[in-house]
């Protein structure tokens, strides 16, 4: 019985991605996305176009198909067509301005402004403006929150003290006004970066700690995707070398060693535990009359 279930699941997996041009709109959409995943963009577009053409105006299948086409035209390589992608995203927005896909289309339009040309950093003002439009229109939608972080990341792409201070203030405001946001760990990560640029050592440690504390943990994820070793490492080394808080450093080095005993940095962690003991012993010796 169990073997049969396994076989069925396998067959379902095998079926996806194979040829064929028929099926319900939902099936064609699913097949189109499978083809998109495999990089078969021409075939994917055929599926998406067929669904869009056969659907009633404004219905969910049409919106999904238009959004899928826009995404494919924007992100396919080679032969991307940014103009067509933008037109399709705007069509989704025009057909159903409050639909989820319309909101994601707004963010996609902003992301298109962030696309580097020839690998160079794109101009900052149009990016900031485009993200701000998404934030203002949909402040409590996931796409609006995401836009806020893209906006801050764009402003941090080149080091600039004044701009970094503005970003830090914006992030502190976000953290104050979004106590339940799933993006808090991301926000603290960016705060840490700002503090690194500005030389705010204690606040950097606090940010690293809060980023660790607020990190989302998906129980369904495999352990590789739940790797907390980087958080432990950051907190431990910042506590040791930037805050001089050896108690905290020891705690996180020990967590690191206990939970990731086969990690490459375990040797360094053990060395650091020893070095802290040695430094304290040396200071004590110097203090003795």
């Amino acid at each position, binding site marked *: 019985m169990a073997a049969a279930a396994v076989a069925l699941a396998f067959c379902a997996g095998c079926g996806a991605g194979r040829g064929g041009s028929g099926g319900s709109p939902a099936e064609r959409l699913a097949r189109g996305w499978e083809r998109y995943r495999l990089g078969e963009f021409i075939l994917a577009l055929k599926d998406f176009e067929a669904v869009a053409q056969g659907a009633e105006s404004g219905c969910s299948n049409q919106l999904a198909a238009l959004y899928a086409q826009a995404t494919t035209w924007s992100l396919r390589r080679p032969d991307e067509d940014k103009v067509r992608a933008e037109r399709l995203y705007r069509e989704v927005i025009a057909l159903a301005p409050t639909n989820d896909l319309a909101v994601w289309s707004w963010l996609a339009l902003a992301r298109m402004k962030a696309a580097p040309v020839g690998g160079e950093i794109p101009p900052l003002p149009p990016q900031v403006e485009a993200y701000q439009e998404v934030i203002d229109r949909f402040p409590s939608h996931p796409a609006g929150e995401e836009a806020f972080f893209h906006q*801050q990341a764009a402003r941090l792409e080149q080091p600039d003290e004044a701009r970094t201070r503005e970003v830090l203030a914006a992030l502190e405001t976000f953290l104050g006004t979004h106590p339940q946001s799933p993006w808090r760990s991301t926000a603290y990560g960016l705060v840490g970066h700002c503090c690194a640029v500005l030389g705010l050592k204690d606040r950097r440690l606090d940010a690293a700690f809060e980023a660790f504390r607020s990190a989302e943990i998906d129980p369904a994820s495999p352990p590789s995707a739940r790797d907390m070793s980087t958080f432990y490492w950051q907190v431990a080394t910042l506590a040791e070398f930037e805050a001089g808080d050896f108690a905290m450093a020891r705690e996180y080095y020990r967590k690191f060693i206990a939970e990731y005993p086969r990690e490459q940095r375990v040797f360094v962690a053990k060395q650091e535990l020893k070095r802290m003991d040695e430094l304290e012993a040396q200071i004590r010796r110097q203090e003795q009359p």
Partner: protein
Amino acid sequence: MISTAWSFLRRNSALLFVSVVFLWSVFAIVSYRKAGVPTGTTIQLRIGHWQLEAGVREAFDRMAAEYRKLHPEVSIVQDAIPESSYGTWMTTQLMGGTAPDMIEVGVSLPYNVLLGYYSRYFVPLTTYVRESNPYNRGTPLEGVPWFKTYRDSMRSGYVGEIQQYMTVPLAQFGTRVFYNKNLLRKLTGLAEVPHDYRKFIQTCETIRSHLDEQGRPYTPITSSGYHAGMWDGFMSAPLTYGAVRRVDFNRDGVVGSDELFVGFKTGRIGFDFPPFEARFRMLRQLTDQFQAGFTGLGRDEAVFLFAQQRAVFITTGTWDAGSLVEQARGVFEVGIMDFPIPSRDDPEFGAIVQGPVYENPGAGLPFAITRTSKHPEVALDFLRFIGSQKGNEELNRIIGWIPAIEGASISPVVKAFEPHLEGVFPAMPVDGLGGETSIKWGQQFALFQVKQTSYEQMVAEFQPFYLTRGTEELAEAQRNRRRAVVGDERLLADARVRALAEVGTNAVSLWMKYRGMTTGRLINRNLVTALLQQRLEEGVVTNAVGPYEFSPDIVARVRARLAARDKEGR
């Protein structure tokens, strides 16, 4: 009538010849395949791999026979393909829909191509590796999810870009020094090789001072272009580990080629850094023990010298252990030892060396199940069988490799290969910045290896080029990083659509993944670049405190904390 037939034959002789050959080929292939199929077989599985080393094919055959005892209806045949043509073979088999049910993946193909293959041709295994392995029943691993039964938690089977476990690894690998025990005893009087580096080099000198029957000096270490990198990687390059303390600006515990360049450019580190100099001094001392012209020799030529008993030491991995022992059988005894390291009181390297070399415990010999398999559930079951504690132990015992599963015992031959899980690692990626500096370094390094240049000359040639050309290469590396963003955008667009299509706990999980990927791949993408840019803009610094060094301010803070603690009576 006869003349018509004869005329027909003459006119179509070429076509007839091709047809006859084709039919004969079909008959031969079918007969060959049928001949290997035991009676009673209703399910035949094929397993493809590139492992032509001694023992591997025998091990798979024997494990297939063991499996057949439990499942008489299943027979398993191997397609063992040489490594040199494996990528082409695998590609044509996958594209033609004729690939084996289980296939080893990971060699001869660029990683980005392999990623496409994973999505297109292989069955995701995440669901199955989270279940316990039924073949672990009755062992301490009974009921434990399969991935957790691995020494490396099956990390090597997980493909981050696809967010799925895609392969089942079956063995671990390690690299050690092999030596001819008889020749060592004859030339040096020693029964064992000293583990201390200084004594090891002295032993090599003693070996070199002896002549064979034909008046040729013995070679202490037989090497080649293939082997030289191993000696460097396991002995001299790890001496550079101290660079982590100076230039790991992003605090991830390793030195990136961009970080190293910024360190050089801002005067925080240079070729006069003692661990860097030490690496090349040790490398020179080692290459002095190699045979002349080793860089132009291939892997087999080095092994040949060892098998001929004209050299005492050779380095290689578990994959060659069985073959080497087999070649020496009845002629001389092969010993296996760890790489020598300098002692703490070594006058030259004692102050530099900080520990043994860290060895990644990741598992290899990874097998995926192809989507075209007619019996994927049976293929999975066979992989569970040889990926169980007992099955994996037996498979690796026959081959002479290290099992990948926790608690599986290791054969005495490869006991010495157990990885060191604590130790240092190389931290001088001077050749990873960009194409031109990498080529320049490669040229200088090659000259150094064959003693046509000294360390000082090599540095004098390379450093000015590195510091000038490196600036443009760093900028190009950053541009390449930005160019690659579209790949991540594409991946995230897919992840978003999947999350939007789900409801309930699945949706929660998918959105978490989406946010994690968005943060890592897009939002944080250029932060390190910005930090490094800031360091570059600050220019050359003197007496800078490294990321893992105590500044006077920190020492003062520690002093104050200690004083406060003492005051509180703790």
